[in-house]
């Protein structure tokens, strides 16, 4: 068909349509688009109702004896040093990382402004197990007269490895994602090892020599509490606390077992 004719007939058609239908309404103005997936409403904790979970982590069996570490390769590493993998006194297991693994739902927690400290002294880490909130600053100090390097090997966080000169300026780092436990080592002093537990909430603790831990300020609810040991793995327990409750929850790790187990 000739283009002109086509245009003409179209014109006729359009006229007919316009006459018939009248003017089409303009599409309604689109309202401002919906807000991007509204953040879940953050629940605030009522300090009047908070509960406490505490307990002791026991060790069942004979603990491997701590071994003496030969630090003669670096004269700057002074003092006695022994392995800290399994530290047991009177059946109490130290250096167990305990935290609320699940059950906190929509609570939002502010990340503490103050940093947590990790010290290198006498070519060992203090503390051996460190808890930190995701995003919270870790300040690393070197009090030794030798160079250390701090090398965490996380699975879900960014790996880094940084050198710190003798008595050098503190290094500050943070871990963005929850991960329990991240092994940390010094490549130059291979016996130097520690673990960092990174948690999204502030409810975590590390057992002391008495095997005790305490999680304070928990809102009422049902929680999964996990106890994680660098050698013996993780144990989970469920605990329900009412307002102002004070519950006790003990864990026992068995010699020889890795991972599974429980009370």
């Amino acid at each position: 068909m000739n283009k002109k004719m086509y245009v003409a007939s179209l014109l006729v058609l359009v006229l007919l349509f316009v006459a018939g239908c009248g003017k089409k309404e303009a599409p309604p103005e689109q309202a401002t688009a919906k807000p991007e997936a509204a953040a879940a409403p953050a629940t605030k904790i009522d300090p009047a109702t908070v509960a406490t979970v505490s307990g002791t982590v026991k060790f069942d069996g004979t603990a491997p004896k701590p071994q003496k570490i030969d630090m003669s390769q670096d004269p700057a590493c002074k003092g006695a040093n022994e392995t800290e993998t399994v530290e047991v006194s009177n059946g109490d297991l130290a250096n167990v990382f305990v935290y609320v693994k699940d059950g906190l739902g929509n609570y939002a927690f502010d990340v503490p402004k103050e940093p947590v400290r990790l010290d290198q002294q006498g070519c060992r880490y203090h503390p051996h197990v460190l808890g930190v909130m995701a995003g919270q600053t870790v300040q690393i100090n070197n009090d030794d007269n030798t160079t250390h390097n701090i090398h965490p090997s996380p699975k879900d966080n960014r790996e880094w490895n940084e050198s710190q000169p003798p008595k050098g300026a503190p290094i500050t780092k943070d871990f963005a994602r929850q991960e329990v436990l991240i092994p940390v080592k010094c490549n130059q002093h291979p016996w130097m090892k520690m673990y960092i537990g990174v948690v999204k909430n502030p409810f975590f603790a590390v057992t002391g020599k008495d095997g005790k831990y305490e999680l304070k300020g928990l809102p009422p609810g049902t929680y999964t509490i996990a106890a994680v040991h660098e050698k013996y793995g993780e144990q989970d327990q469920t605990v329900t606390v009412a307002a102002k409750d004070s519950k006790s929850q003990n864990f026992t790790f068995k010699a020889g077992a890795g991972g599974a187990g429980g009370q």
Partner: protein
Amino acid sequence: MAEPLTPDHDPIVTRSYALYYLIAIVLLVASLFWALWDEAYGQRPWKKYQAVFQERYGAFLKSARSQSAQAEKEVQGNPEYRKLAEAADAAEKQATPTIKKIGGQLKEVSARLLAVQNVFTDKRAWVNAKVYEIETEDSARGKQSKQRDLDKYKAQQFTVKFPDGSRKNFNFDQLEEEYNRLREEKARLNADLGELLKPVNEAKTKRDDYLKEHLVSLTPEQIAGLQKKTADWDTKIVQINVASANIVDRCESCHMGIREPVRLTPASLAAKGGKPDEYARAFVSHPDEELLQIHDPDKFGCSPCHQGNGRATTSVTKGHGDYEHWLWPLFARQNVESGCQTCHAADMMLHLTTGNVGQVISEGKFLFRQRGCNGCHKYEGYDREPEDLLNVQQQIKQKEEEQQGNLRRAAVLTKQADNATDNATANRLYAEAEALKVANSRIAGQIEQLDFRSRDLLRDLKKIGPDLKEVRTKLNKNWIPVWLHKPTDFRPTTKMPNFRLNDEQIKAISAFLWQVALTDKLPTAPKGDATRGKELFETRGCLGCHSIGEGPEMQGGDFAANLTRVGEKVNYDYLFRWIKNPRVRTRSYCPYEKKDIGPEDYAKHNLPYQFDFEHSTCPNDGHELQVEQMTVMPSLRLSDEEVADIASYLITQRQKDPASYPEAAFMDDPKLKEEGKKWIRHFGCAGCHEIAGFEDEGRIGTELTVEGSKPLERLDLALHTQKAQEGKEVITDKAILARLPEGPATSDWYNHKGFFEHKLAMPNIYDQGMMKAETEKLRMPDPHLNKDQIQALVTFLLGSQETSLPASYQYKPEDWRRDIQDGWWIVRKYNCVGCHQFTPGQPTSWQNVRRFQDPDWKEQFPPKLLTEGARVDPEWLMRFLANPALSQTDTHRNGVRPYLKIRMPTFFFSDMERRKLVRFFQALSQQPMPYTPERLPTLTAKETDMARSLFTSAAAPCLKCHATGDAAHDKTATAPNFLMAKDRLKPGWTERWITDPQSISPGTSMPSGLFRKDGDHYVFAGPTPSAFAGYDKDHRQLLVRYIFQLTPEEQRRVSGRMGRAPAGKKASSRKPAGSTPAGVQ
């Protein structure tokens, strides 16, 4: 009187047809309207798409703009931005008065210039005209008179009226001078202004760049531009037209968001409050920006990658080519990478800097080789070694013929010269004859090189399966028929496919193999310690390719066999020889005689029985022998003790007693031999195995190079055709159904994808219901692939098409990119990726080996090769690949990293493969070849002192981790010896490495932060030794120069100073191989 004429009753006249006409008219008009409507809308569904897009995209942009404005505000509130903004304002403020002043001057000068120019141009025109007249005047008198006129004119006074009202008189020369002066003045002022504005503009650019860099999306202005573009959109066909490649793609008429500069997802383009619909899904951005950048749609269009009918606009189905008259339907989402094969057939590995595009197709290409598909199916590009070999052999033949021809011609010429009538002619002919002889010498050189290449290529020929001439020396006889029955029953992950053999076939085949195998006896091998052997097996490197354990217990790589039950099938003495050096053959093979050459052949010629790469000619006829096993398995350079330990461990790997296999006496029955031969030929066993008498056997399968474009009716679905069209599933077995990438069929699968998927899941499926003789049945064995593997292979096959694109679209580079293509072929051939990372995030076999999960074993991973080409000197790499021990005598070790338990094996690469690998690494790191090493200035005495003090200071404890060659010290070393640096490393890379090793090899033991930037150079970050006082140069460079000039004596001296435990002191007794590597608990 005549009767009045009354017409008869005439039905035609009297009956009214108005109703029919009306109906016809209505129908006609209706069909006209329908035709017009259909023309305008019915045939143009894309109009609707464009209208919807305009609406939804507009709404999206509106919200994006407000978000962007919000984000902009946030960035602008940032102190860093404010600082930049303030700096920009301050710069502007400071410059403004001067700018204003100069602006004023400029204005004035311009006005004066204009006034002068007005007068001057007019006068200059008169003068120029007069000069021309003088030049063209013939008579001398005329010239003189005109010159006089000119002089007179130039002496006249002209009045210029300046803008301020003043007037001034100039003669012509003065006028010209004034004009030039004003012009220069104006240029100078302009330059001054530019100089003044420069810092202001720079500060502003800095501020704006900061904003752009810190805004995740576009700036509000950019979004406003998009909004305007969208609002002003006229409905029209959007088309990519590349005439030279015959590409006409109108896809973007509907897929309007594909190239928009904002990220569009189905959710962001759903109707208000609705779920993503067909429109929202059509409008999304292209999922990979990097891909589009490399393949500019204006050149490549859409259909060369995705297929479909780019010209069709009348419906979605037509456009996507999903109808029976279109041969190239759109690739399914799961096989979208098929499109890569169109141009990238020559690449074994396709990947981008980030993301995982290319993984599926690369896996498919790899599987095709790894599973031995090309043992039966020819595929262009998969026979590189044999094709090159054939090519080289033909070239040699041609060259030899050329030589013969030259000799004959030279003889003729010489004869002619001898009998020439005059000396000039004779000399010319002699010269010609000599030239031919010289040409022959050149050809001889060429032939020599081609001979080398052909030897290399013979060496590079590999088979995917083991050599079956060795079955008598290697295997438990009774195991063979059990294995042939169903290989996966014995070893679920084997590469050997299941052949569906019946008992007669199994008996005949095993009998043939047994009776034609070599009968030579192997020497008795020493026994070892299985416990030590287990540790060695798990730590020396075996698990880079092999796996052990079944199901969840499995660890190691999937490139080579799973050895969980190897003890049931193999003889100890053979295992010992194999582990020690798997390339050793019992007898060499002469391709010329087509015979295995044994000691008797050598004895006949009084030659010692010895064959290897140095002794590779046949004692009978001097032809090149096959001296190696055709396996890719390397040698780990183990000591005999280690070999015995590992062999002793492996021989214990059984689930039942080898003696418990039923006696297979029939294998010695000579009557079965011929029958066995027939079936071996029938099933094409020689495609993967070396079998006596089958060395030159051809392939039995269909060529698959363009299988994807085979017409559908030639893919024989036999009795399943109708069910396929009806979308009915024909596989019933649950285990086999699980192999289908998208599960049981739910819709029409009568297409290439459906055919391939079903065929690979169950190769004999199209025999179902057919009455066939044993020899007529489909021969393809069951490769027992999982659904990911089938998807990868189907993706590869679907893309295997004849293309109508011009050759220039094929990715067949001839530069460094070719080196990358060649390199990947070799890297995958020998499974270098089993141990080394070539691209960040690429998995290796060691990541699933249990011992290596311990963080203390982190240093025990083989080195990553992410920047290998930038790191090492290519000449050094050539040497290293030939001899990874870097020693002729001390071979049971790693040359570079003696502290690694895993050993870099010797692969016996041919020179050609080594060279290709070296070029590959250089190309991968974009390093030019040939490499010119940088000359480092020699250290002065003072510099040596400084560097030494830094090298040994407590703050830079380099030698704490780096090996020195001192055995006691190296027990705890986790890094290479510095003495190697000079030959091995590139200085520039070394400098970058010591600055920030974590960005070169993420996760390395070498820490970052040793140096910090101070102005334009780097200084040591720790306390600097006093010798550095007043030194203002780069500390890294100094240290690198020191390391590159380090001598063994110097290293001994400085390591003594480090206060390490004295070498003699027995710090700890030698630990067994499996204990914590760093020597501590």
